[in-house]
């Protein structure tokens, strides 16, 4: 009979399970600079729980992006985008399981900010492949996400600037102007207007990722008799710092538009707090009722049940961890022809972009990560 007392809680604990192991390993390899190994670990998302599939697609999408495998990254991120749309429903199974166990057993649907950044990286991928029509499709989908969660996402200036750029690339200046006006309002500036095209010159557009986005940690409060409140909060991240760019020996002063991804993610999580706090309250009530029900028949059983239910309470700290802490869009106007550039960010290393061929009246895109 003793085995039932052991097997059941172990089974439930396994159900609530920790995050899929390949994801953790892949993240670790990514930040150690072993991008190929990180990509290999997430091959086909094998070993990743079905509930974490979105995370797998998002992490793999970023890994492939920084491997400069933009086509493959696009393929994976499009799957993430489709999954987000498919999850746009309240699942009875998920909700009922979460009420007795914890939020980690639910299918990961992505924070509002992460849902936007799937489109952000897709836009970047398409622009880097000179697929401007597809980039604009993603831009329009990003606008739909902005419209859905305006309060949470208004701090993401990078994505807004990217959308404006997509409109410019499709020769839709009025739509671009509207986005620049919104951007100026969000940034508290009077006007944002990129340099107009000049004969004999072209543009280099850099997407610069810096640091790593903050991860979620658990913030716990214990209340008598055995209620544990465990909510996710974002730890401190690394906001973007100004970048210094030199071309052919000269320091440049280009237009830079940055987003602190940690700040946007925190706002996004705060705006979703009503959801998980309501679920937390319902769960605390349900767990208390279960413990009392067991206690009606057996006091030791109640103690045991309370201990298990207390241990089961765990904040959902899953998040997209390979995201940079900051994203900066840099627009550099250069003479047509070949250029060598040095890009430095704060105290970190200097990246070199050599042999960048700028076409007259055209744009060249590059993505970098510090």
């Amino acid at each position: 009979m003793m085995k039932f007392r052991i097997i059941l809680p172990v089974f439930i604990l396994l159900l609530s399970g920790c995050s899929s192991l390949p994801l953790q390993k892949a993240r670790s390899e990514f930040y150690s600079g072993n991008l190929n190994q990180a990509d290999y670990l997430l091959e086909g998302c094998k070993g990743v729980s079905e509930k974490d599939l979105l995370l797998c697609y998002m992490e793999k999408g970023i890994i492939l992006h920084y491997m400069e495998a933009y086509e493959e990254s696009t393929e994976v991120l499009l799957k993430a985008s489709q999954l987000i749309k498919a999850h746009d429903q309240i699942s009875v199974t998920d909700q009922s399981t979460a009420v007795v166990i914890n939020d980690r057993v639910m299918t990961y649907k992505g924070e509002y900010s992460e849902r936007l950044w799937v489109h952000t990286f897709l836009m970047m991928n398409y622009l880097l492949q000179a697929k401007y029509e597809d980039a604009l499709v993603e831009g329009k989908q990003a606008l739909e996400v902005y419209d859905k969660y305006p309060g949470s996402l208004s701090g993401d200036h990078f994505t807004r600037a990217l959308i404006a750029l997509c409109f410019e690339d499709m020769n839709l200046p009025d739509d671009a102007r509207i986005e620049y006006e919104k951007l100026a309002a969000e940034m508290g500036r009077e006007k944002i207007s990129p340099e107009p095209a000049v004969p004999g010159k072209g543009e280099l557009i850099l997407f610069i990722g810096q640091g790593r986005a903050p991860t979620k940690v658990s913030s716990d409060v214990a209340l008598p008799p055995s209620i544990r409140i465990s909510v996710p909060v974002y730890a401190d991240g690394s906001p973007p710092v100004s970048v210094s760019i030199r071309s052919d020996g000269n320091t440049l002063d280009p237009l830079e538009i940055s987003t602190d991804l940690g700040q946007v993610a925190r706002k996004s999580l705060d705006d979703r707090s009503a959801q998980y706090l309501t679920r937390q309250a319902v769960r605390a009530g349900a767990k208390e009722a279960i413990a009392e029900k067991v206690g009606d028949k057996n006091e030791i059983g109640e103690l045991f049940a309370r201990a298990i239910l207390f241990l089961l309470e765990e904040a959902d700290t899953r998040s997209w961890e390979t995201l940079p802490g900051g994203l900066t869009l840099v627009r550099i106007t250069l003479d047509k022809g070949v250029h060598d550039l040095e890009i430095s960010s704060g105290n970190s290393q200097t990246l070199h972009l050599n042999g960048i061929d700028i076409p007259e009246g055209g744009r060249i895109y590059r993505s970098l990560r510090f």
Partner: protein
Amino acid sequence: MGCGLKRVLIYKGDSIMQKIFIRFIIMMTCSALLIMTGCMASTKNLNPKNETHYDASYDFSDKNKIVERLVTPLLAAPAFPVQTKPILIVYPVVNETSEHISTDGITDAITTKLQQSGRFRFIDKSQRDNIQKETNYQSQGYVDPAMRVQQGKQLGADYILGGTLRSIKKDQPEQMRLFKKERIYYSLDLSITDLKTGEIVYKDTAELAREASKPIIGW
């Protein structure tokens, strides 16, 4: 006495745990069976001419409808008398919607229908590089001079055929509801421009609007 009470309590505790465990196993087995029956694979052929929509977004039925709607009046347009057989060059339909739609499929379908009508002739822009490669090869001395394709004999287009696909999407506002409604309006503008004068000599629009709803709560 105390030892006996403890044994009874342990026995009762075990019995409750056993009941919970058995119920849990039954619930998991039923769920697994339900999932397995729901996952049985099936395949069937569909008639591409029949209208089939799973949601409000653009699909192959829409393509057929739009192409039919645009081509039929164009074939009867007085701007292109039957005897003239104008030469068209086709530029791909531009996708300005918020969906990844392969507009090449629309362009190809319009071209096919117009070409099959025998009222228009077409220049294949996509084969220009290959034509150049092939004619260059022929002029390098490998091909019998009598059989060489003479350069400078390609047809010049009279008109440019192009179009733009646009969409306007509207979601039902957030409120207490059981179903989420979505409305999408699509329009495809087709235009034919005279290459000599730059004048738009023909313009038409095909429109379609659809509403779809899906439950907010699911399994």
